[in-house]
């Protein structure tokens, strides 16, 4: 180190004050302007993630880069800093923060009664569309927080109000602690933001679910179009803002993989180039993420290991949570390898301080340093339209850069200085002289040996006299070193010296107060190798294999379609042939190819069905498994919401249903509203993408009647309807308006596209069919009459527990009944529910199905069918059809499912016993020629679950052992959803 240079550096203080513009008056002194240059020489300059200049020179003036290059020429009026091989990097950019923006106040009010109307004036009808919000309005520069960002390497951040579904705009802020608003605010309206989460500032009930939020965002786009075309007389500040902000970059925050996919669909429908703020679990289905072809912002908050030391508590940690801990650090690499463009963000970290640890972990798990640097500099800059200005070091760019001891993503690299808009922030004083070494100190003829270690961090020293250690205190602060030690009892000697790398000479103050000079000679440099960081491990842990889905009992490779011949079984055809003994079933190319005797395998896999029963797959007409939400309870009609927006393909109940012989379900909206949401009819293809599970052309919608829709069971008195009388009027109102809407639409006049009315029109035209939750005869009758009045038919009454009281009317109307076998007594309206219901309706000519509405019962619907035989005394074959062919008919999929008929889908179950027997177990469940459940394979999967849990537990114990942070063992809350499930647990 060179003392001279230190002095030069010392003079560089607050290089550029940019407060005063030319046109500002100056009253605090003379008007002065500093046009000097600051020049950094002998630096390794990383101008971009891919370009590095060794021994480069960076010239900065007025907060901007003037030049950067190899040339060592610079103007004469320059203050020069020789960096002596240190590195210069452009500052990081985080474009997704809430820097300086306080969380808004939660709306008050009593908990019970729901608020259905908006509380804001002049904005959109829904309070959660806060597009007129500008983050900048709530912004207050927070220099303490800024320092945290600066110390973590960030020079510029975008900040926004994280509140609402449409969140309005955010601002781009330079973290210039010496500046003021005039130079810090780089962009007041930088970009526009969205999420699925409601604003806390309003208690407006809609949307209460993710599917509602999704539908709302669709409707907003239609309303925007309508507004922009000048069809609205009044002002709508929210829509105005949406128009104004259209040209800005658009960001959409999700909470993981399935939000990503949902956002992508919304973007596709309306041609919006959303950049997705990702959740961190995208690695689970990287192919689907890649197929979105969208840019992403990636948080890096990896979960801590669970504390598994208490084995009993540890049992509550699910394998999927353990795997996520293990696999999450591979997420950045997975996106990188797939070629997804992404920026990184500190969002989700409590403080940017934690960021580097997680980033280093991502790098350990395969994120390349170059991609990491891009993701923190050029890519975020490009995403907010600031390429060339931030995130790079080139002529004209902002002088935002870090001076580091080495390569930025090395563990031991120190960040010395962080310059932002040309203003210096010292993170760690790089002028601190390294005085590590052994010194022989000569004082009054006595030689002491002083060994100094770790002087640039927390200096420590030992003092020896004649080989014996002397107890001493050592301090090294702001270039001055002091040593205090005892010469004799009560007699202290103090040494004080200015630090120099090659030894220091100074003054000794003796016990009697006299001062003496002392000299020292450096004898050796102490090696400082004993700095062991036992916490961070440089090697990635073994990463568990991904499965589809990535939870227990998922498959490492998704089941493949194969030709299958099941031989010599009792075959329940559900066709005119009835039940065939000693028969074969051939599945070919995913379809039933033949049913009969002595079929030839022709290359198909042969399964010996001797002693087994073979049937078509069970179809559950009323299911609420595999969903992230069930009810959108914010309005009394929610025809616009779609269950297909909230399918959860990672629900273990899918596998359990397969183990009960179920191959297809109707995922129904709940029964909170007279007019519910659109169903998703789906095949239970465990591990498949949502789009492969959902059968798109099956269009159904949930309607509901009775206690749930009149909110009789949860003390709610404010929403219409409160009675069955009101329910009728809701229907009449909507269908009347639907007719009017259709007439206007067909008239060629301009009309406002209304997603809800579009659905109602579909219902009126029987292009979307109703499955209506119903209990008592009066309401069943009413619903048929309303439908008849509007010229259409109800397709199915579901639950329909008093169907037996109006079975004749139902048969005449042509509506089917999908009921429970024996549920009753749980509420007032099921008082007259009887287990003979299905049989009576069946005999009256109604197509009857037996459904579950329950994730437990759904996996043994064969037993429920058997109860109809038991109670109602109908033929066993007819009972069996109630869980196979009849629901297929009600779902209008009997052309492809519900029986073993050549040409239909190869959805087949092999049972260990008579399928109506309590002893029957599904041994193989096949969908379209793919074996999705196999009782033998299940045994292997169980072993895998045990093995993986043991492996992961060992890894977590090792983490804790190393002193790494853990989180307490915990169990995910699995919400068992059914019709009445009002609120989804987030």
């Amino acid at each position, binding site marked *: 180190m060179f003392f001279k240079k230190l002095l030069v550096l010392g003079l560089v203080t607050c290089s550029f004050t940019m407060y005063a513009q030319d046109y500002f008056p100056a009253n605090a002194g003379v008007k002065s302007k500093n046009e000097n240059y600051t020049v950094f020489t002998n630096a390794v300059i990383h101008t971009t993630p891919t370009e590095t200049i060794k021994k480069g020179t960076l010239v900065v003036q007025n907060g901007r880069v003037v030049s950067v290059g190899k040339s060592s020429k610079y103007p004469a009026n320059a203050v020069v800093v020789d960096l002596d091989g240190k590195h210069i990097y452009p500052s990081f950019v985080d474009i997704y923060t809430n820097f300086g923006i306080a969380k808004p106040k939660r709306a008050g009010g009593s908990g019970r009664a729901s608020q259905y109307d908006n509380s804001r004036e002049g904005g959109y009808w829904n309070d959660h569309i806060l597009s007129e919000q500008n983050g900048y309005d709530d912004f207050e520069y927070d220099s303490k927080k800024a320092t945290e960002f600066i110390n973590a390497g960030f020079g510029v951040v975008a900040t926004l109000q994280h509140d609402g579904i449409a969140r309005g705009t955010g601002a781009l802020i330079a973290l210039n602690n010496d500046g003021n608003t005039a130079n810090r605010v780089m962009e007041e309206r930088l970009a526009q933001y969205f999420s699925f989460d409601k604003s806390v500032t309003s208690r407006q009930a809609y949307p209460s679910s993710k599917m509602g939020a999704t539908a709302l965002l669709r409707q907003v786009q239609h309303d925007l179009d309508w507004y922009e075309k000048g069809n609205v007389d009044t002002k709508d500040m929210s829509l105005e803002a949406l128009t104004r902000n259209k040209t800005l970059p658009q960001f959409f925050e999700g909470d993981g993989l399935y939000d990503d996919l949902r956002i992508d669909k919304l973007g596709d429908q309306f041609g919006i180039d959303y950049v997705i703020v990702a959740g961190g679990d995208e690695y689970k289905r990287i192919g689907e993420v890649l197929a979105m072809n969208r840019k992403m912002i990636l948080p890096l908050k990896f979960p801590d290991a669970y504390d598994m030391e208490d084995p009993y508590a540890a*049992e509550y940690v699910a394998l*999927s949570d353990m795997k996520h801990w293990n696999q999450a650090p591979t997420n950045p690499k997975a996106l990188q390898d797939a070629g997804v463009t992404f920026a990184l963000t500190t969002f989700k970290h409590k403080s940017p301080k934690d960021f580097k640890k997680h980033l280093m972990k991502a790098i350990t798990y395969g994120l390349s340093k170059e991609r990491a640097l891009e993701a923190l500099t050029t890519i975020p800059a490009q995403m907010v339209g600031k390429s060339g200005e931030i995130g790079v070091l080139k002529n004209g760019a902002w002088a935002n850069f870090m001076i580091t001891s080495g390569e930025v993503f090395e563990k031991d690299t120190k960040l010395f200085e962080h310059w932002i808009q040309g203003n210096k922030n010292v993170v760690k004083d790089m002028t601190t002289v390294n005085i590590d070494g052994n010194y022989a100190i000569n004082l009054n003829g006595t030689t002491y040996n002083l060994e100094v270690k770790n002087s640039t961090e927390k200096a420590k020293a030992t003092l020896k006299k004649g080989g014996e250690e002397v107890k001493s205190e050592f301090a090294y602060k702001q270039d001055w070193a002091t040593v205090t030690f005892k010469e004799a009892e009560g007699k202290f000697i103090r040494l004080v010296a200015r630090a120099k790398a090659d030894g220091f000479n100074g003054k000794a103050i003796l016990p009697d107060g006299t001062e003496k000079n002392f000299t020292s000679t450096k004898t050796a440099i102490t090696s400082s190798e004993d700095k062991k960081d036992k916490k961070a491990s440089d090697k990635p842990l073994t990463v568990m294999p991904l499965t589809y889905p990535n*939870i227990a009992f998922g498959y490492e490779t998704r089941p493949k379609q194969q030709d299958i011949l099941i031989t010599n079984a009792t075959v329940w055809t559900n066709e005119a042939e009835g039940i065939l003994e000693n028969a074969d079933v051939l599945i070919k190319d995913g379809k039933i190819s033949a049913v009969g005797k002595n079929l030839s395998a022709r290359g198909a896999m042969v399964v010996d069905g001797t002693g087994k029963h073979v049937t078509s797959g069970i179809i559950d007409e009323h299911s609420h498994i595999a969903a992230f939400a069930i009810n959108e309870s914010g309005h009394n009609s929610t025809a616009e919401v779609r269950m297909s927006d909230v399918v959860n393909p990672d629900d273990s109940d899918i596998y*359990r249903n397969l183990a009960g012989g179920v191959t297809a379900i109707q995922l129904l909206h709940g029964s909170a509203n007279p007019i519910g949401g659109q169903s998703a009819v789906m095949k239970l293809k465990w591990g498949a993408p949502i789009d492969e599970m959902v059968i798109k052309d099956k269009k159904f919608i949930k309607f509901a009647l009775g206690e749930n829709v009149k909110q009789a069971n949860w003390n709610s008195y404010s929403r219409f309807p409160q009675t069955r009388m009101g329910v009728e009027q809701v229907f009449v109102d909507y269908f009347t308006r639907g007719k009017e809407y259709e007439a206007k639409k067909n008239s060629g006049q301009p009309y406002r596209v209304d997603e809800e009315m579009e659905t109602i029109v579909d219902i009126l035209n029987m292009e979307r069919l109703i499955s209506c939750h119903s209990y008592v005869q009066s309401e069943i009758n009413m619903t048929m009459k309303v439908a008849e009045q509007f010229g259409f038919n109800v397709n199915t009454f579901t639950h329909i527990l008093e169907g037996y009281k109006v079975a004749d009317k139902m048969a005449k109307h042509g509506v089917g009944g999908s009921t429970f076998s024996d549920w009753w*007594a*749980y509420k007032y309206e099921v008082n007259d529910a009887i287990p003979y219901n299905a049989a009576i309706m069946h005999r009256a000519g109604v197509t009857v199905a037996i459904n579950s509405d329950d994730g437990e019962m759904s996996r043994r619907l064969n037993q429920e069918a058997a109860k109809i035989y*038991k109670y109602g005394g109908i033929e066993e074959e007819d009972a069996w059809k109630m869980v196979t062919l009849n629901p297929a008919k009600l779902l209008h999929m009997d052309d492809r499912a519900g029986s073993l008929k050549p040409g239909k889908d190869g959805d087949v179950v092999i049972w260990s016993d008579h399928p109506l027997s*309590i*002893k029957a177990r599904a041994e193989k469940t096949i969908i379209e020629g793919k074996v999705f459940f196999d009782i033998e394979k299940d045994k292997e999967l169980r072993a895998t679950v045990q093995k993986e849990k043991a492996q992961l537990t060992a890894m977590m114990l090792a983490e804790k052992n190393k002193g790494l942070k853990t989180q307490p063992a915990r169990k995910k809350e699995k919400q068992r959803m059914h019709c009445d499930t009002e609120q989804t647990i987030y």
Partner: protein
Amino acid sequence: MKTLQQLLVAVVFLLGATTNAQQTPAPAQATAYTITGATAHVGDGTVIDNATIVFENGKISTIQSGGSATKGTVINATGKHVYPGFIATNTTLGLVEVGAVRQSNDDDEIGEMIPHVRGIIAYNAESKVVESMRPNGVLMAQIRPVGGTISGASSVVQLDAWNWEDAAYKTDEGIFMDWPRTMRRGRWWLGEEPGYKPNKSYKEDINKIKVFFNNSRAYSKAKGTKNLPFDAMKNVFNGTQKVYISANDQKQILDVIAFAKEMQLTNVVLVGGYQSYKVAEELARANIPVILQRVQGLPSMEDHDYDLPYKLPKLLTDAGVTVALGYDAEYWQVRNLPFYAGQVTQFGLSDEDALKMITLNPAKIMGIASTTGTLAPGKDATLFISDGNALDMRGNNLSRAFIQGRDISLESHQTKLAKRYAEKYGQNE
């Protein structure tokens, strides 16, 4: 194949013409009955083929294979099956009529330690739910209060009675208690993180129970001012009243075993027992029987075997634990008890072993096995005749049922409605 018509004709035949209001409880047995030619499923694991069963004055007098001596009314049950009445445990039958209607709910009294609150008092013998049990063979049940830590006292009832006093078979035979949870649920609706986290006050919660037990025991040793809750515990300490403790995870169960030991209780029954298979040997050693949670339930964790609840009874039985199949959810589902027993036969238990879990074992656990629970001379003639295997929906079809020899009705609110509407549509013709 039978038809609804035949079924209804049978019902009408059995009841004669009087089919209104709640079913009238049958009068005491006046004449002897002899059932002949049946396959008798004794309830203790054995079967008697071609059985002749004679019962009089409410008690079984003889049961044997073959034999020609008949007495009184002879019922030819050739090709049919006779079972002891099924005994449901851990239910709120008769305490709740319509779940969602608060006015009809009498199962949950306020208070944390209320052993003096007695389930039998609120038992509605005329409940429509109760009468719906009988057609499936469920003829006796344990009635328990719920809620709090010590919820109150349970009783055993027979399910054909005029009033609770009539119904009572064994009054206040046990107290029900919920063991503290090791994991506590995050109150997400208050903004807490959802999911379950370790319960920090677990030990404290256990101590509260210990304090209560210790106080109750101390109280029982001296005379003083009457303290109803403490007083209600005295039969626990003299061993004549059972202590039913609900616990599901391993740690809880081990702590229950330790608690029983520490409190010197020899009459503890574990209820629930989801993870009991992991500590089955400890349970067997401590001689603690288990009333399992409903076996037709879902696994509690996504990574548990899909059939774990189904196979629990087998795992416990193999370890030597006495198991009864209980019910801990909807009271109206209790009529499916026979099918819970059927369900567990998928997993290596014989029909007769499974039957034991809803007959002899619950009778033993509740201390009523000397008078009921199996088909044996001297025991109550609480039994029924089924067309086939009563543990299977395909066979469970009752033609006759007797409680303590009384020839009971198999009709209910539900059969009456069925008949009325079948008639309306001419389905009976």
